[in-house]
């Protein structure tokens, strides 16, 4: 490690005592690189076994990596915590400016412990931490309003990040998110609720420093290689032009797009709610994360008239992506883009994870349809497919939790279905609501076995979409998923955006690490990837995870996937093999 590299500095913040300290830990970065690798070590060090995710002792770890601030597309920040949603490993990644701001403020990772008695926000800059009163910001209707106040109150414009929660986080909805720079999100597994449990409304991090490299010429050479590859890449063009929502039409065409709580995997008229449809009718601006030439963030401009005043309009800017289009669109039978955008805007304003919220509402709609619940439970709301206005009211109830039913919905479908029934169509995997792919066995196995139950853990949906003849055996499929997940531990430890995984080949990663002062050969990288994966698995086992306790919702066997009907025996054999590999 380069001796004066600020990457080695870990900032420890104690919210119970309003104190902080910095500890250099070059050992962590030497052994585990950064990001996910360092975060899981810090989690093992600081998170007591079996701790209540809302207890003051439960830590929040934010980690960045050695390539951040040096090379393009190394733009993700990794958050680790104990998830209040699954009661197990919480890991969430976000873009925006968070990673660059933490690195430029002079830290490699931040560990937040304790809990405040009063609402507060943190300002991390100029080598210190300020503890600011957030009493007046607590309870604000819109997460962005609080951020706007902070933005005007604090310095560092242009070189800072503002992470914040909304009412969902304050009210401990177990899938509340943390938003950063308004349009990027630590979305999954409930980091927002952990912030809320600590009375932590927001964190501002700002800095503008230079970062050392081993060889200035080699640095510029590697930089240019990556930059040129990025701007020439067709994948990058796809994400720039339409963004992730370019996936709607292809997935619909192959019958892999979950519709109406996965009662179907294809929507009759998907064009309107596709990337193309939204771009033509609503695209208002593109944005990029710090140090990313792609600019995949697509912002819709929704122009609506006020009902009671002629020629008076408001224009709302709403960031959309594939997963929200699936969860708050097709999964709820919403095919009108304006309806979808209105619902998404409300979900974002409360600070809820869009994916879990959509799946929760889809389960509730089907449960109502089947008579498992009545409008007595829903506080009179007649939830039905495509009715965005009613969903908007239901979302408010999830946040405000006026009765037992909404209190249950605020804990996700796994819990709600354990109380009200309908587990066979409660689409959670490992306790986490499903992403938008019904492409075949690899997608579902990927979420079951992925250590954060995310489609990005191992990209099973991508394996499904490249079918081979003959198709892989369950064992070969699990091996492929695990191999991919282990390599992704390297990428997420270097906090490289997964969209750039084709650019950051093992060779490029080695060249990049060389200039960052952490040279590693291919064999070493493979070994580090496997070791990080094992450390995460060990944490999960410590907190009670077990493959044989995984529940597979019956629904996935009832609706044909892109690769036809899924075979229960195939899935069972795959899980047996995974268990043998992980425990053997």
């Amino acid at each position, binding site marked *: 490690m380069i001796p004066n590299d600020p990457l080695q500095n870990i900032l420890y913040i104690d919210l119970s005592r309003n104190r902080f300290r910095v500890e250099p830990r070059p050992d962590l970065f030497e052994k585990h690189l950064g990001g996910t690798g360092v975060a899981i070590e810090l989690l093992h060090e600081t998170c007591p076994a079996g701790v209540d995710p809302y207890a003051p002792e439960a830590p929040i770890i934010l980690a960045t990596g050695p390539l951040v*601030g*040096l090379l*393009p597309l190394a733009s993700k920040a990794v958050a680790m915590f104990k998830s209040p949603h699954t009661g197990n490993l919480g890991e969430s990644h976000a873009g925006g400016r968070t990673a*660059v701001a933490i*690195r*430029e403020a002079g830290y490699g990772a931040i560990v937040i412990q304790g809990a405040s008695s009063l609402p507060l926000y943190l300002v991390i800059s100029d080598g210190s931490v300020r503890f600011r009163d957030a009493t007046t910001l607590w309870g604000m209707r819109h997460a*962005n309003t609080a951020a*706007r106040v902070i*933005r005007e109150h604090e310095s560092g*414009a*242009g*070189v800072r990040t503002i992470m914040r929660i909304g009412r969902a986080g304050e009210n401990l909805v177990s899938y509340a998110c943390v938003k950063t*720079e*308004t*349009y990027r999100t630590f979305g999954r597994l409930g980091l927002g609720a952990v912030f809320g449990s600590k009375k932590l409304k927001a964190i501002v991090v700002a800095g*503008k*420093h*230079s*970062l*050392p*490299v081993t060889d*200035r*010429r080699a*640095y*510029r050479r590697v*930089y240019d290689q990556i*930059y040129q590859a990025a*701007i020439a890449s067709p994948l990058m063009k796809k994400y720039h032009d339409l963004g992730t929502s370019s996936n709607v039409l292809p997935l619909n065409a192959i019958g892999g797009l979950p519709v109406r709580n996965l009662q179907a995997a294809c929507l009759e008229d998907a064009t309107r709610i596709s990337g193309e449809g939204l771009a033509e009718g609503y695209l*208002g*601006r*593109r*944005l*990029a*994360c*710090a*140090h*990313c*030439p792609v*600019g995949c*963030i697509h*912002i819709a401009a929704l122009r609506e008239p006020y009902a009671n005043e002629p020629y008076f309009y408001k224009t709302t*800017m709403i960031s959309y992506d594939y997963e929200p289009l699936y969860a708050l669109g097709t999964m709820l039978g919403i095919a009108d883009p304006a309806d979808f955008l209105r619902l998404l805007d409300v979900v974002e304003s409360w600070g809820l994870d869009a994916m879990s919220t959509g799946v929760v509402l889809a389960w509730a709609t089907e449960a109502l349809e089947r008579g498992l619940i009545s409008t007595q439970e829903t506080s009179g709301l007649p939830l039905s497919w495509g009715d965005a206005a009613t969903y908007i009211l239901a979302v408010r109830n999830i946040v405000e939790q006026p009765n037992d039913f909404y209190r249950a919905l605020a804990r996700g479908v796994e819990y709600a279905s354990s109380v009200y029934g309908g587990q066979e169509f409660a689409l959670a995997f490992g306790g986490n609501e499903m992403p938008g792919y019904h492409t075949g066995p690899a997608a579902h196995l990927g979420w079951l076995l992925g250590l954060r139950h995310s489609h990005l853990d191992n990209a099973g949906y991508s394996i499904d979409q490249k079918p081979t003849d003959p198709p892989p055996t369950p064992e070969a499929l699990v091996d492929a998923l695990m191999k991919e997940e282990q390599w992704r531990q390297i990428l997420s430890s270097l906090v490289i955006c997964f969209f750039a995984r084709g650019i950051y080949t093992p060779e490029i990663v080695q060249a990049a690490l060389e200039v960052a002062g952490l040279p590693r050969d291919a064999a070493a990288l493979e070994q580090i990837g496997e070791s990080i994966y094992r450390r995460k698995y060990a944490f999960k086992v410590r907190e009670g995870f077990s493959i044989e306790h995984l529940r597979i919702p019956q629904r996935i066997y009832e609706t044909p996937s892109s690769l036809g009907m899924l075979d229960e025996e195939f899935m069972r054999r795959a899980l047996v093999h995974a268990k043998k590999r992980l425990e053997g």
Partner: protein
Amino acid sequence: MRLTVVDSERCVGCQLCMFACSRRSGKGGMAESCISVTSIGGMERGFKVVVCRACQDPPCARVCPTGALLPKQGGGVQLIPDKCIGCGRCAMACIVGAVQWDVEINKPMICVHCGYCVNYCPHGVLAMLPIENHVMAEETAQ
């Protein structure tokens, strides 16, 4: 030739120009960047991209008490670091805020119009233009 913001509406806020500017010296990070990109009250409203306009009679040089900023032929200034005492008057004198500050050495960072950043703006926000086209390009860009 002048560095010119030809269309700030195309800016996606990636800051690649800022990183490029700092990288001229071979370092990572943004400490030495002479460009500033900030949102206009929220990213959804777009970005303000500030670069030196290369004034013919630069106010920053006029207020420098030690003569550390030398006006250049054709506009703009050159910093003589040894003369600079880091008082910050130049930054206050620049009404567009084009004098950036390197907090690590406590000295101003002012664009020398080398054009290195232009190679790293894939979205067509920045360009190097002949002096006579400079004002016209600015008019097109508002």
